[in-house]
């Protein structure tokens, strides 16, 4: 099938998915989430004020009208203003994306490189000391709650040793650098366990295939065996895992942003949830859904690049 036609067809799936996403967030907001009027109006709110605010926010419209408003937002990307901060939501997203990406971007690259390289190494030395050592380290990383790692990291590396800033953020390059190094290092450790174990399993699965044995018996160097054959043939699940993480980079890291006082999108989402700020929650959910669809299509396209046997249907 023509590549562009395929992409177009897959992108058409966005339509029903966005309808579904809108339905889910609309139902959750109207049936499960607390009434935002009580948060926005404070402890002395009267019923009259609550009713007036419901009217102003359009919460007294019929459900179907409110749902269609949500759908319209999803297709026009006109997210409007935050109920709590009264800021334009696109401006809020623009302001938060930089701080979030300044952590998640380098973190994504570093942690992917580290875990894939280590997975290759331990797969090659399967059963040896290095394999067992990395396995233990992975289990340690997986077992310790991320909150404990953050608290220890802040206390030991930032407070006791004084190597990093404890928390905070300054906008603009290179001002932000001192503030993001510690969270990046800590999160590389937090993610390292799960990712390395996953990539190790994928690589080992390939490393014991007949064609690898054949390659070795043909006298190919281990470098060529591992990189040209094993790694290349493991790329489908690796790519899937790598690309599917990209949309969540934008969402930021909720815990890290809270503990390191980083004004990113993760912190923005937490604040929106606490304030029942529906337009912000809606915007972030729609953008995430859109991102996941887009990157799923990209993954499918890339499959054909790394494995020419695959065809787009």
């Amino acid at each position, binding site marked *: 099938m023509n590549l562009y036609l395929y992409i177009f067809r897959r992108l058409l799936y966005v339509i029903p998915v966005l309808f579904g996403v809108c339905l889910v967030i609309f139902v959750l907001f109207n049936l499960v989430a607390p009434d935002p009027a009580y948060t926005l109006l404070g402890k002395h709110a*009267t019923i009259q004020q609550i009713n*007036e605010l419901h009217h102003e926010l359009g919460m007294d419209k019929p459900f179907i009208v409110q749902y269609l408003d949500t759908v319209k937002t999803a297709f026009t990307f006109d997210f409007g203003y935050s109920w709590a901060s*009264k800021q334009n939501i696109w401006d809020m997203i623009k302001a938060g994306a930089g701080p979030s990406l300044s952590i998640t971007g380098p973190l994504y690259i570093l942690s992917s490189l580290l875990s894939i390289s280590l997975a290759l190494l331990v797969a090659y030395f399967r059963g040896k000391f290095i394999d067992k050592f990395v396995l233990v380290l992975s289990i340690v990383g997986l077992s310790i709650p991320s909150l404990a790692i953050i*608290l220890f990291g802040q206390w030991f590396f930032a407070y006791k040793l004084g190597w990093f800033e*404890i*928390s905070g953020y300054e906008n603009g390059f290179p001002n932000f650098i001192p503030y993001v190094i510690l969270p990046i290092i800590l999160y590389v450790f937090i993610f390292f366990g799960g990712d390395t174990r996953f990539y190790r399993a994928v690589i080992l699965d390939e490393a014991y295939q007949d064609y690898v044995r054949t390659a070795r018996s043909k006298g190919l160097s281990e470098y060529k065996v591992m990189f040209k054959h094993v790694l290349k043939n493991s790329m489908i699940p690796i790519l899937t895992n790598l690309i599917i993480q990209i949309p969540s980079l934008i969402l930021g890291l909720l815990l890290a942003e*809270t503990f390191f*006082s980083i*004004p990113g999108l993760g912190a923005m989402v937490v604040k929106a949830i606490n304030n029942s700020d529906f337009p912000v929650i809606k915007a972030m959910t729609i953008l995430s859904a859109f991102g996941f669809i887009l990157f799923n299509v990209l993954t499918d396209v890339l499959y054909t690049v790394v494995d020419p046997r695959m065809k787009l249907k």
Partner: protein
Amino acid sequence: MKMRNILLTVMCSALLVLSGCTKKQDANEKVLNIVSPAEIKGYDPIQADDLYSGREISKIYEGLLQYHWLKMPYELVPNLAESLPEISKDGITYTFKLRKGVKFQDDIAFAGAKGREVEASDFVYSIKRLADSRNQATGWWVLDGKLKGLNEWREKNSKLAATNYDEEVEGVKALDKYTLQFKLAKKFPQFLYSLAMPFTYVVAKEVVAKYGKEFINHPIGTGPYILPIFDQGKKITYVKNPTFREKFYPSEASDEFKNLLSDAGKKLPLVEKVVVHVMVEPQPAWLKLNKGEIDYYSVPKDNFATAIKNNKLSDELVKKGFILEIAPQLDVTYTAFNFENKLFHNKKLRQAMYLAFDEAKSNTLFFNNTAFPAQSIIPPGIAGNIKDYKNPYKGLKLEEAKKMLAEAGYPGGKGLPEIKYDIPDSTPSRQAGEFFQKQMEQIGIKLKVVSSPWPEFQAKVKKKSVEIFGLAWGADYPDAENFLQLFYGPNKSPGANGSNYDNPQFNKEFVEATTMLDSPERTAKYEKLNKFLAEEVVALFGVHRQAYILEHGWLKNYHPTDLHHDAIQYLNIDTAKKAQLLKNF
């Protein structure tokens, strides 16, 4: 050898990089670094219903009155008013003369981008803006029903296509450029306190018009600081307002604040820049305080045992030059009954529950034994609190509780349905809820703890769908009325009386007391009402909390306070001492 050299080079480079990863403090800079433990909602005075937003707003905006920085009990003094108002004999008309020459901060909203002089009409506009139903002001309650014609103006304008700010309201008038007059709908001596609250701070019409919806993010007031950029971020930096009027540090003080007079007569504000770090989590804030990066912070619950023993600081903190400030807060924690539920009309049941509750243990578990047991609703420091009063029903008196429960008609809890105990959703609240549940189990009362997010919890109380519920009340102003009104019948839900308690005799005496001017007679009336509520056990009063704040030795003029939202202008940094003390860090 070659490998070793490479390793050494890598390690040295890493150390060099790491050493550049922290910013060095400049002790010579007069910069105040403080923490806001909650996100700032924005800078619209009429929406300043939480303490932290109120504090930020008060750096930029000002009102007619303020509390004297160095006097306790709290004392109202003029701020943008030239003097305290002239009050008519019937206590209905309040006439203020405004301070001349006070200017709004420079902004493009004004002609020539230069801030203009504040006039009485600006106050009229600001009060109407608070009343305008289109603005959904969280602070409307302070004036609701208080000023002649204001409620009618609000009601009428809510039905029009646009609010008519030009329409005159009898209750708030500009008599001339510098004379402002309020007429109350009925006597309400507490009215003056509302003029020291952020809700009634003065704003400029042009600025509101210029920024529209985003006015909340563009604060332009008359206050000591300006905020060049507000992006709802985690670091808010204020700089001195270059057009701030001549305002000076007070020269008089109550005995407990006589040691804070070294800056008496100096022009305010005393520091050039204020940096507010929004830090919701206490642990990083505590580390920053211990590193000297912030100037004061309350001791987090989890660090209390290591930092403070027997109300004294640990040796390590003393060596670093820290000073511990302990101050009672104007608040009360309590478990309320919903009196719409007939079950709680049974006074003996309420008394049995109170007798069964181990307040001392609760104080140790949840407040590090630092709070004062609340014998009644009015906290110490407010007229109406009865010194040395002991509530006869305050636990733990287990045997008496069991006897009382039997007299209530439920021996050993038999016949008593399971009671729902609603609490806001947070770890400390849940722990306290479970503790209360266990305490009641001792006499056979079964409770079901239900935790809900704060807005949902609030909605349940307002809709009267709770049975018993736990919460705390902090003073909006230093008058017993602010506490007693929590049980005033006409304030029933959705008003502040979430208990829906309605006793005609109490209501009558409440009205009598709250319309009296401050006097020994009024205090006696407040005490009587306070004791009545305590012995009726209208709620299970828990504790009055105390603030435990650590400040650095270089910080000058600080004292913990509940109501001085504008405290920052009085604080100072001793830069020489800071440089010296930082050597110990």
